[in-house]
Protein backbone atom coordinates (compact mmCIF):
# COMPACT_ATOMS: atom_id res chain seq x y z
CA UNK A 1 0.00 0.00 0.00
CA UNK A 2 2.96 2.31 -0.35
CA UNK A 3 1.60 3.54 -3.66
CA UNK A 4 -1.40 5.12 -1.98
CA UNK A 5 0.64 7.88 -0.42
CA UNK A 6 1.68 9.44 -3.72
CA UNK A 7 -0.65 11.96 -5.33
CA UNK A 8 -0.36 10.32 -8.74
CA UNK A 9 -1.86 7.10 -7.43
CA UNK A 10 -4.77 9.05 -5.96
CA UNK A 11 -5.59 10.66 -9.28
CA UNK A 12 -5.19 7.39 -11.15
CA UNK A 13 -7.52 5.62 -8.73
CA UNK A 14 -10.15 8.35 -9.06
CA UNK A 15 -9.85 8.05 -12.83
CA UNK A 16 -10.16 4.27 -12.67
CA UNK A 17 -13.25 4.52 -10.48
CA UNK A 18 -14.81 7.11 -12.77
CA UNK A 19 -14.05 4.90 -15.77
CA UNK A 20 -15.73 1.97 -14.06
CA UNK A 21 -18.76 4.12 -13.20
CA UNK A 22 -19.04 5.27 -16.80
CA UNK A 23 -18.65 1.72 -18.10
CA UNK A 24 -21.25 0.49 -15.64
CA UNK A 25 -23.63 3.21 -16.74
CA UNK A 26 -23.13 2.41 -20.40
CA UNK A 27 -23.73 -1.30 -19.80
CA UNK A 28 -26.55 -1.10 -17.29
CA UNK A 29 -28.88 1.62 -18.51
CA UNK A 30 -31.51 1.26 -21.18
CA UNK A 31 -31.65 4.74 -22.59
CA UNK A 32 -29.29 5.50 -25.44
CA UNK A 33 -28.55 8.97 -24.08
CA UNK A 34 -27.47 7.53 -20.76
CA UNK A 35 -25.12 5.21 -22.62
CA UNK A 36 -23.61 8.25 -24.27
CA UNK A 37 -23.27 9.94 -20.88
CA UNK A 38 -21.42 6.84 -19.67
CA UNK A 39 -19.07 7.01 -22.64
CA UNK A 40 -18.41 10.68 -21.93
CA UNK A 41 -17.53 9.80 -18.33
CA UNK A 42 -15.09 7.15 -19.56
CA UNK A 43 -13.43 9.63 -21.92
CA UNK A 44 -13.16 12.13 -19.10
CA UNK A 45 -11.56 9.57 -16.84
CA UNK A 46 -8.96 8.96 -19.53
CA UNK A 47 -8.35 12.72 -19.73
CA UNK A 48 -7.75 12.84 -15.99
CA UNK A 49 -5.17 10.10 -16.39
CA UNK A 50 -3.42 12.00 -19.18
CA UNK A 51 -3.30 15.24 -17.18
CA UNK A 52 -2.12 13.46 -14.03
CA UNK A 53 0.71 11.74 -15.91
CA UNK A 54 1.63 15.06 -17.52
CA UNK A 55 1.75 16.79 -14.14
CA UNK A 56 3.77 14.16 -12.29
CA UNK A 57 5.77 12.89 -15.24
CA UNK A 58 9.46 13.65 -15.68
CA UNK A 59 9.00 16.09 -18.62
CA UNK A 60 5.97 18.30 -18.11
CA UNK A 61 7.49 20.99 -20.34
CA UNK A 62 7.09 18.62 -23.32
CA UNK A 63 3.30 19.08 -22.93
CA UNK A 64 2.52 15.65 -24.38
CA UNK A 65 -0.11 14.64 -21.85
CA UNK A 66 -1.73 18.06 -21.88
CA UNK A 67 -1.96 18.04 -25.68
CA UNK A 68 -3.48 14.57 -25.63
CA UNK A 69 -6.09 15.78 -23.16
CA UNK A 70 -6.94 18.88 -25.22
CA UNK A 71 -7.29 16.84 -28.42
CA UNK A 72 -9.31 14.26 -26.55
CA UNK A 73 -11.70 16.99 -25.33
CA UNK A 74 -12.16 18.18 -28.91
CA UNK A 75 -12.77 14.67 -30.22
CA UNK A 76 -15.19 13.95 -27.39
CA UNK A 77 -17.23 17.00 -28.39
CA UNK A 78 -17.46 15.67 -31.96
CA UNK A 79 -18.39 12.25 -30.64
CA UNK A 80 -21.16 13.70 -28.50
CA UNK A 81 -22.59 15.69 -31.40
CA UNK A 82 -22.66 12.71 -33.76
CA UNK A 83 -23.87 10.30 -31.10
CA UNK A 84 -26.74 12.48 -29.99
CA UNK A 85 -27.62 13.19 -33.62
CA UNK A 86 -27.87 9.45 -34.16
CA UNK A 87 -30.03 9.04 -31.07
CA UNK A 88 -32.40 11.71 -32.33
CA UNK A 89 -32.54 10.13 -35.80
CA UNK A 90 -33.25 6.70 -34.31
CA UNK A 91 -35.90 8.17 -32.06
CA UNK A 92 -37.58 9.72 -35.04
CA UNK A 93 -37.54 6.39 -36.81
CA UNK A 94 -38.62 4.04 -34.03
CA UNK A 95 -40.24 6.43 -31.55
CA UNK A 96 -38.09 5.21 -28.71
CA UNK A 97 -34.61 5.86 -27.37
CA UNK A 98 -34.53 2.66 -25.30
CA UNK A 99 -31.90 0.30 -26.57
CA UNK A 100 -33.79 -2.84 -25.52
CA UNK A 101 -36.58 -2.01 -27.94
CA UNK A 102 -34.41 -1.19 -30.91
CA UNK A 103 -33.75 -4.79 -31.91
CA UNK A 104 -34.76 -4.98 -35.54
CA UNK A 105 -32.38 -4.54 -38.43
CA UNK A 106 -35.17 -3.81 -40.86
CA UNK A 107 -36.59 -0.29 -40.85
Amino acid sequence: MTGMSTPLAGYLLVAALLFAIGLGGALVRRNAILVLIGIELMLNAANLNLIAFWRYGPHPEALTGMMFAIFSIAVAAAEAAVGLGLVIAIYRHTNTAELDKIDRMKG
Partner: protein
Amino acid sequence: MSPIFYLLAALTLAGGLAAVLLKHLVHSALAVTVAFAGLALLFLQLDAQFAGFAQILVYIGAVAILIVFAILLTHGSELPKGGVFSHTWFLGLVIAAGVFAVLGWAVLASVSAVPQSNIVPSVTVHDIGIALVGRYVLPLEIVALLLTAATIGAVIVAMHEKERAR
Protein backbone atom coordinates in the same frame (compact mmCIF):
# COMPACT_ATOMS: atom_id res chain seq x y z
CA MET B 1 -2.68 14.50 -0.70
CA SER B 2 -4.57 17.63 0.18
CA PRO B 3 -8.10 17.68 1.59
CA ILE B 4 -9.11 19.65 -1.51
CA PHE B 5 -8.22 16.64 -3.64
CA TYR B 6 -10.44 14.37 -1.56
CA LEU B 7 -13.27 16.87 -1.71
CA LEU B 8 -13.04 17.22 -5.49
CA ALA B 9 -12.66 13.50 -6.01
CA ALA B 10 -15.75 12.87 -3.89
CA LEU B 11 -17.68 15.53 -5.83
CA THR B 12 -16.67 14.08 -9.20
CA LEU B 13 -17.41 10.50 -8.26
CA ALA B 14 -20.71 11.42 -6.62
CA GLY B 15 -21.71 13.30 -9.76
CA GLY B 16 -20.79 10.36 -11.97
CA LEU B 17 -22.53 7.86 -9.75
CA ALA B 18 -25.66 9.99 -9.55
CA ALA B 19 -25.67 10.39 -13.34
CA VAL B 20 -25.63 6.64 -13.78
CA LEU B 21 -28.12 5.80 -11.04
CA LEU B 22 -30.75 8.56 -11.12
CA LYS B 23 -34.01 7.56 -12.76
CA HIS B 24 -34.82 10.87 -14.34
CA LEU B 25 -32.80 11.57 -17.46
CA VAL B 26 -32.61 15.33 -16.90
CA HIS B 27 -31.34 14.72 -13.38
CA SER B 28 -28.71 12.44 -14.86
CA ALA B 29 -27.66 15.17 -17.26
CA LEU B 30 -27.37 17.69 -14.44
CA ALA B 31 -25.45 15.21 -12.28
CA VAL B 32 -23.01 14.49 -15.07
CA THR B 33 -22.47 18.25 -15.31
CA VAL B 34 -21.40 18.18 -11.66
CA ALA B 35 -18.95 15.41 -12.55
CA PHE B 36 -17.60 17.48 -15.46
CA ALA B 37 -17.18 20.49 -13.19
CA GLY B 38 -15.42 18.37 -10.57
CA LEU B 39 -13.06 17.06 -13.23
CA ALA B 40 -12.32 20.60 -14.41
CA LEU B 41 -11.45 21.54 -10.82
CA LEU B 42 -9.24 18.47 -10.56
CA PHE B 43 -7.45 19.66 -13.71
CA LEU B 44 -6.92 23.02 -12.03
CA GLN B 45 -5.62 21.20 -8.97
CA LEU B 46 -3.12 19.53 -11.33
CA ASP B 47 -1.94 22.99 -12.53
CA ALA B 48 -3.48 22.40 -15.96
CA GLN B 49 -5.34 25.71 -16.16
CA PHE B 50 -5.88 25.69 -19.90
CA ALA B 51 -7.21 22.14 -19.99
CA GLY B 52 -9.47 22.85 -17.02
CA PHE B 53 -11.10 25.89 -18.60
CA ALA B 54 -11.36 24.10 -21.94
CA GLN B 55 -13.09 21.28 -20.09
CA ILE B 56 -15.66 23.69 -18.62
CA LEU B 57 -16.19 25.46 -21.93
CA VAL B 58 -16.60 22.29 -23.98
CA TYR B 59 -18.28 19.93 -21.56
CA ILE B 60 -20.53 22.20 -19.49
CA GLY B 61 -21.05 24.79 -22.20
CA ALA B 62 -21.60 22.43 -25.12
CA VAL B 63 -21.82 18.72 -24.36
CA ALA B 64 -24.16 19.08 -21.37
CA ILE B 65 -26.42 21.38 -23.36
CA LEU B 66 -26.38 18.93 -26.29
CA ILE B 67 -27.35 16.09 -23.97
CA VAL B 68 -30.17 18.14 -22.51
CA PHE B 69 -31.47 19.04 -25.98
CA ALA B 70 -31.32 15.40 -27.04
CA ILE B 71 -33.24 14.37 -23.93
CA LEU B 72 -35.99 16.85 -24.64
CA LEU B 73 -36.14 15.97 -28.35
CA THR B 74 -36.55 12.27 -27.53
CA HIS B 75 -39.18 12.91 -24.85
CA GLY B 76 -36.75 11.61 -22.29
CA SER B 77 -37.98 13.94 -19.57
CA GLU B 78 -40.84 11.56 -18.83
CA LEU B 79 -40.16 8.53 -16.68
CA PRO B 80 -40.05 5.32 -18.74
CA LYS B 81 -42.61 2.68 -17.84
CA GLY B 82 -40.47 -0.43 -17.99
CA GLY B 83 -37.72 0.58 -15.55
CA VAL B 84 -34.48 2.31 -16.40
CA PHE B 85 -32.05 -0.58 -16.11
CA SER B 86 -31.62 -3.20 -18.79
CA HIS B 87 -32.29 -6.90 -18.22
CA THR B 88 -28.63 -7.72 -18.17
CA TRP B 89 -27.81 -5.12 -15.54
CA PHE B 90 -26.12 -7.63 -13.26
CA LEU B 91 -23.69 -8.69 -15.93
CA GLY B 92 -22.90 -5.05 -16.67
CA LEU B 93 -22.24 -4.40 -13.01
CA VAL B 94 -19.92 -7.39 -12.79
CA ILE B 95 -17.99 -6.28 -15.87
CA ALA B 96 -17.63 -2.73 -14.51
CA ALA B 97 -16.48 -4.02 -11.12
CA GLY B 98 -14.02 -6.35 -12.83
CA VAL B 99 -12.59 -3.56 -14.94
CA PHE B 100 -12.19 -1.40 -11.87
CA ALA B 101 -10.50 -4.23 -9.98
CA VAL B 102 -8.00 -4.75 -12.80
CA LEU B 103 -7.33 -1.01 -13.20
CA GLY B 104 -6.97 -0.46 -9.46
CA TRP B 105 -4.62 -3.40 -9.12
CA ALA B 106 -2.55 -2.16 -12.04
CA VAL B 107 -2.32 1.35 -10.59
CA LEU B 108 -1.39 0.23 -7.09
CA ALA B 109 1.08 -2.37 -8.27
CA SER B 110 2.91 -0.20 -10.76
CA VAL B 111 2.72 3.37 -9.58
CA SER B 112 5.82 3.09 -7.43
CA ALA B 113 7.78 2.09 -10.54
CA VAL B 114 6.91 5.32 -12.37
CA PRO B 115 9.41 8.12 -11.83
CA GLN B 116 7.60 11.05 -10.27
CA SER B 117 8.71 14.63 -10.22
CA ASN B 118 6.90 17.01 -7.97
CA ILE B 119 8.08 20.25 -9.57
CA VAL B 120 5.16 22.47 -10.46
CA PRO B 121 5.37 22.84 -14.25
CA SER B 122 5.31 26.45 -15.37
CA VAL B 123 3.43 26.14 -18.63
CA THR B 124 1.88 29.28 -20.06
CA VAL B 125 -0.86 29.54 -22.67
CA HIS B 126 1.86 30.87 -24.95
CA ASP B 127 3.75 27.56 -24.70
CA ILE B 128 0.58 25.62 -25.44
CA GLY B 129 -0.13 27.81 -28.45
CA ILE B 130 3.40 27.38 -29.80
CA ALA B 131 3.15 23.62 -29.33
CA LEU B 132 -0.25 23.52 -31.05
CA VAL B 133 0.94 25.26 -34.19
CA GLY B 134 4.42 23.76 -34.04
CA ARG B 135 4.88 20.16 -33.10
CA TYR B 136 1.19 19.30 -33.00
CA VAL B 137 0.05 21.19 -36.07
CA LEU B 138 -0.92 18.06 -38.03
CA PRO B 139 -3.16 16.67 -35.27
CA LEU B 140 -4.65 20.15 -34.92
CA GLU B 141 -5.57 20.26 -38.59
CA ILE B 142 -6.95 16.74 -38.46
CA VAL B 143 -9.07 17.64 -35.43
CA ALA B 144 -10.34 20.70 -37.27
CA LEU B 145 -11.33 18.53 -40.23
CA LEU B 146 -12.88 15.96 -37.91
CA LEU B 147 -14.92 18.59 -36.10
CA THR B 148 -16.20 20.05 -39.36
CA ALA B 149 -17.10 16.62 -40.66
CA ALA B 150 -18.76 15.71 -37.37
CA THR B 151 -20.81 18.91 -37.30
CA ILE B 152 -22.04 18.44 -40.86
CA GLY B 153 -22.64 14.75 -40.21
CA ALA B 154 -24.60 15.41 -37.03
CA VAL B 155 -26.76 17.98 -38.77
CA ILE B 156 -27.47 15.66 -41.71
CA VAL B 157 -28.21 12.69 -39.47
CA ALA B 158 -30.54 14.62 -37.19
CA MET B 159 -32.21 16.63 -39.96
CA HIS B 160 -35.86 16.08 -40.72
CA GLU B 161 -36.36 13.64 -43.55
CA LYS B 162 -38.84 15.72 -45.44
CA GLU B 163 -40.67 13.00 -47.35
CA ARG B 164 -41.06 10.87 -44.24
CA ALA B 165 -42.30 13.58 -41.94
CA ARG B 166 -46.03 12.95 -41.37
